[in-house]
C-alpha cells in the first residue's frame, strides 16, 4: 500500500520543520501537526552536516555502534595492581585523565596528583624534587583512555595503585579504573600531603589485596544490573553513587569477611564511609561499554568525553583514537565551605565516561536527591534528561528512569545531533581546587566546549568520500 492509498484512513499527521505559517495553514485545515522547534545548526557546520549525513555508511554504522554500546555486559571480574594489569603500557609511565597533556600545560590539580604519585612510587623525596623530575620529562605521561583505563578527576595511575578490572562479557573488552580514595584531601583532586600518601599506602597494602581476594571468592559482579538497580534507587551514577555503593558493599561484605576476617571491619568501614566508592567501578563499566562501540567506520557516535584540567576532548567511533579538543570550562555548582568560583580549576577527569554511556547528567531525572548541585529544581533534572534525548541515538534498554515511566536513559551522543541542535551534553562533575594540593572545592555542572564537537564533525566530513558524486542517476532513473 502506498502512502497515497493509506490516506483513506484519514489525513496524516504532518511533521513541520521551518516556517510557522505553513504549520498554521495545516492547523487551519484541521490537520494534526508535530512542529519541530528548529534552529540553525552551529555556525560553520552546514556543509559538513550534509556530507556526514549523506555518508551511505552512517546509518548502519551508528546502529551497530550504539547497539554495541547498549548491549555491553560489563562485569567486575577482579581487582589488580596496575603494575601487573597494565605492565606493558605503564612501563614507568604515569597515566592521566583526559586527552594528552604535558607537564607545562598541566593544571594545578593535575600537577598535584602527578607530584603525589612520584612520592608514592618513591621516585622523589619531596614535592620539589617530584616537580623538577616531572618538568624534566623523566616520566612519560599517557592518557588513561589510550590504555583501556579511565581515571576520575586527575586520574593519575601509577604502578603501585590498584585497579578495578571490568570485562564486557558480550564483546570481550576489558577496562580498568583506580579505587576510590574517599573525599576531602585526595590525590585525584590534586592533594598530596602526608595523609593522602598514607591512605594510598593503606589502599595498596590492605584494601586492594582484600578486595581482590573477596572478588575472587564472590565471583564476577554484574555491574550493568547493579547500575540499573541504583538508578531506580535515586543515583545518577556520576555525582550520586550512594545506592550503588550500598549495593556493592552488600554484595561484597560476606566475601570480605571470609577473605580477611582480621581486616574486614576496616575495609568495610572505608567503603561505607565513601558514598562514591562505586563510581570508579561504574566508570570502568562505562569504559568497557563505550570501547565496544569504537572503530566503526562512518559512525558519528561519541565514544569518549574526557578532560585533563586544561582541555576537554572527545573521541568518535568512526575516527579511531583521534582527540578533538577545546578549552575545559569552569563548572557551575555549589562550593564546599568558604571556597568559591575563584578557587575552581577548569573541568577535569575521565568521569564523563558515565555521560558517554548514558548515565550521570543524562540520567539526572532519576536522581532528584542531587538536583541542588546542578540547577535547583527537580523539574530542571527532568528537563536535562529530556533534552539529552535530542542529541542521542538510543534509549538504554537496561538503565531506566522510574519517574519517566521507566523510559531508558538517553545514550549515545551523536556529533551531528549536537551540531544540528546546538545542545551540548549535560555533564555532572566534581570541582577541583586550582592550586595544587587543595583537593575538592565543590561539585556541579559543566558545559563542554562546542569546538570539540564541531572539530569532530568536520573531521568526519573529511573522511566521507564525495557523497554527492555517486552518479547512480542514469541507472536508477531507468528502473
Amino acid at each position, binding site marked *: 500500500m*502506498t*502512502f*497515497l*492509498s*493509506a*490516506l483513506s484512513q484519514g*489525513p*496524516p*499527521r*504532518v*511533521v*513541520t*520543520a*521551518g*516556517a*510557522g*505559517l*505553513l504549520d498554521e*495553514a*495545516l492547523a487551519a*485545515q484541521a*490537520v494534526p501537526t*508535530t*512542529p*519541530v*522547534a*528548529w*534552529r*540553525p*545548526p552551529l*555556525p560553520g557546520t*552546514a556543509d559538513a*552536516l*550534509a556530507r556526514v*549525513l*549523506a555518508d551511505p555508511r552512517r*546509518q548502519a554504522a551508528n546502529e551497530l555502534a550504539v547497539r554495541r554500546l547498549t548491549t555491553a555486559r560489563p562485569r567486575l571480574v577482579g581487582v589488580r595492581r596496575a603494575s601487573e594489569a597494565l605492565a606493558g603500557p605503564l612501563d614507568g609511565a604515569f597515566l592521566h585523565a583526559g586527552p594528552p597533556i604535558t607537564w607545562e600545560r598541566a593544571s594545578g590539580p593535575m600537577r598535584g596528583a602527578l607530584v603525589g604519585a612520584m612520592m608514592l612510587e618513591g621516585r622523589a623525596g619531596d614535592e620539589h624534587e617530584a616537580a623538577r623530575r616531572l618538568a624534566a620529562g623523566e616520566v612519560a605521561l599517557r592518557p588513561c583512555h589510550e590504555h583501556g583505563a579511565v581515571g576520575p578527576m586527575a586520574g593519575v595511575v601509577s604502578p603501585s595503585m590498584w585497579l578495578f578490572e571490568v570485562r564486557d562479557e558480550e564483546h570481550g573488552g576489558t577496562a580498568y579504573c583506580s579505587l576510590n580514595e574517599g573525599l576531602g584531601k585526595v590525590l585525584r583532586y590534586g592533594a598530596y600531603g602526608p595523609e593522602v600518601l598514607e591512605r594510598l599506602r593503606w589502599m595498596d597494602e590492605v584494601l586492594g589485596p582484600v578486595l581482590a581476594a573477596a572478588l575472587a571468592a564472590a565471583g564476577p559482579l554484574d555491574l550493568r544490573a547493579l547500575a540499573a538497580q541504583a538508578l531506580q534507587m535515586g543515583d545518577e551514577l556520576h555525582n550520586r553513587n550512594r545506592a550503588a555503593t550500598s549495593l556493592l558493599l552488600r554484595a561484597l561484605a560476606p566475601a570480605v569477611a571470609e577473605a580477611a576476617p582480621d581486616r574486614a571491619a576496616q575495609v568495610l568501614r572505608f567503603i561505607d564511609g565513601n558514598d562514591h566508592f562505586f563510581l570508579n567501578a561504574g566508570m570502568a563499566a562505562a569504559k568497557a561499554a563505550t570501547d565496544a562501540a569504537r572503530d566503526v567506520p562512518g559512525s558519528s557516535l561519541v565514544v569518549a568525553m574526557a578532560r585533563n584540567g586544561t582541555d576537554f576532548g572527545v573521541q568518535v567511533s568512526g575516527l579511531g583514537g583521534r582527540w578533538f579538543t577545546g578549552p575545559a570550562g569552569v563548572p557551575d555548582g555549589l562550593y564546599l565551605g568558604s571556597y568559591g568560583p575563584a578557587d575552581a580549576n577548569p573541568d577535569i577527569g575521565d568521569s564523563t565516561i558515565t555521560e558517554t554511556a548514558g548515565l550521570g547528567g543524562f540520567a539526572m531525572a532519576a536522581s532528584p536527591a542531587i538536583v541542588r548541585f546542578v540547577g535547583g529544581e527537580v*523539574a530542571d533534572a*527532568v*528537563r536535562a534528561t*529530556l*533534552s539529552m*534525548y*535530542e542529541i542521542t541515538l538510543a534509549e538504554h534498554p537496561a538503565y531506566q528512569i522510574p519517574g519517566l515511566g521507566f523510559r531508558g536513559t538517553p545514550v549515545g551522543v551523536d556529533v*551531528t*545531533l549536537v551540531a*544540528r*541542535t*546546538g*545542545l551540548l551534553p549535560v555533564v555532572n562533575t566534581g570541582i577541583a581546587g586550582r592550586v595544587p594540593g587543595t583537593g575538592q572545592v565543590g561539585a556541579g555542572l559543566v558545559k563542554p566546549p562546542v569546538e570539540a564537537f564541531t572539530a569532530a564533525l568536520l573531521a568526519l566530513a573529511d573522511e566521507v568520500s564525495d*557523497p*554527492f*558524486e*555517486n552518479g547512480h*542517476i*542514469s541507472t*536508477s*532513473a*531507468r*528502473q
Partner: protein
Amino acid sequence: MSGEVVLVRQGAYHDSVQLMRVSRALAETPGVEAAMVAMATELNVAVIRDLGFTVPPAAPGDLLIAVRAADPAAAVAEADRRLAALEPAAPGGEAGQPPLTTGSAIRRTPAGLVLVSVPGEHAFCEAHDAVLAGLPVMIFSDGVPVAQERRLKELAEQRGVLVMGPDCGTASIGGVGLGFANVLAPGPVGVVAASGTGAQQVTSLLDWAGTGVSHILGVGGRDLSAEVGGLSTLRALRLLEEDPATELIVLVSKPAAPEVARAVEEAAAGLSKPVVRALLGRPSPASSAPVGLVAADLTAAAEAALRALGRPVPAWPSWPGRPPRGAPKAIKGLYSGGTLSAEAALVAGQGDFVDYGDDAYTRGRAHPMIDPTLRVEALARATETDVVLLDVVLGHAADPDPAATLVPAVARTPAAAVVVALVGTEGDPQDPHRQAAALREAGAAVHLSNAQAARHARSLL
C-alpha cells in the same frame, strides 16, 4: 524627540514570516516611526541600513531588532513581548522539551508526511531524517544545492519514498494542502507538477469547472534536469497510476533535459491512465502523446483534462477593469509565481517580466505571496505607458487579504492599466469574488486564467 536602538541577539532564531509579522505589528504601534525585527542576513542588514539605522556587526544567525521611536525601550519591550509569543508551546507529555530535529519529531508521534521549510542550506538534514524514516517529504525550501537534491532523491529511490521539491511551493495529499494550497474539492484528477503556481492555476480552473483533484504531487523545478534525472516525477507518476482515486493525470512540466524528457514520456506512455502534458516553454520533440493531451499553456491543459474526462469546458470568468489611460506601449509583468510569469511572457509575446518569487528576491525575506512590499513598490514605479500585469494567488498560507494592500497600490499607480490574473477557488479563505470585486473597484481588470489575462494585457497595447 525620538531615539533609535539596534540590538543584536545571538542565536535567537525565528523564521522570516513570523519576524515580518512582528516587524509590521511593531511599525504600526503608536509612537514607533520605523521598526524591523529580522535575522541578520545580508539582505536584511541592507534593508535596515536603508531605513537609516547604523547596524553593528552581526552574523546571519543573529536576530536584529531595530526601532526608531518616541520611547525606544518601550518599543523593544513590545518586540520582546511579540517574540515571546512566537515560542512554540511545549507538546504534552514532554514538558519543556519540544523536538529539535525532524528525526526527533518523527520518533515521538506517528506521522505520515514531513514538510520542510527551513532555509535551503539546512533543508537537507531535515529532509534526510524523513527519507531515512521512510516518510514522504515536501521540501518547500529553495536554495538547496542540486547535489543534495540528487542525493536525497537517490536515497528516496532506494527506500520507495516520494521527495517533493526542493522549491516545491504547493502539494495536496488526499485533500490536505501543503505549502501554498488552494481549497480544492476531491475528484479524479491527479497532478504531477514541476511548478507550484502552474499546478495551482490548472487545479483552480478545474475546480471552477466543477472537477476535483485527487492529489497534487509537486516535484520541484529542477527535478527534470539532467542532474536530478526526473526521479521524483517518475515516482509520482507511478504513485498516481496505483492510486484508485485518480482517473487522469496532468503533468505540469518545465523544459526538461532531453534524456529526462524521453524517460518521462516513456513512463507516461506506459501508464493505463491518460496523461495530459502541460509543457511550458517549448514542446517536447520526443512527445509521443496523443495530440489532444498536449497543451501549450496551463489553461489549455485544464481544458484538455476536462475534455478527456468528457466534461464541458466553461467560459473562464473575468471582471473588466476601467479603460486604459493614455496610450499604453509596454507590458510590465510583476509576478509572484515563476511559471505564471513565464506563461504570461510567452502568451503576451512581449514585455518586461519579473518573478518576485525567484530566489534572488526571497533570500532572507518572505515570499511575495505573503509579503507584497516589493510589488507594491514596483506598482508605484510604473510609468504612464505601462500595462501592469500581475498575479494574485489565493489559498492557504498566502496573504489572508491580498486586495487590502494591492487595492491602494493599484489605485495610485501611474500605469495606464492594471491586469490581474487571480488564481484561486471559491473555497479559498480569501474568497475570489471579494478579491476580484475589490481589485476591479480600484480599476484593475481581473481574469481567472493567467493566459487570458496576458492576452487581455496585450490587447490593450
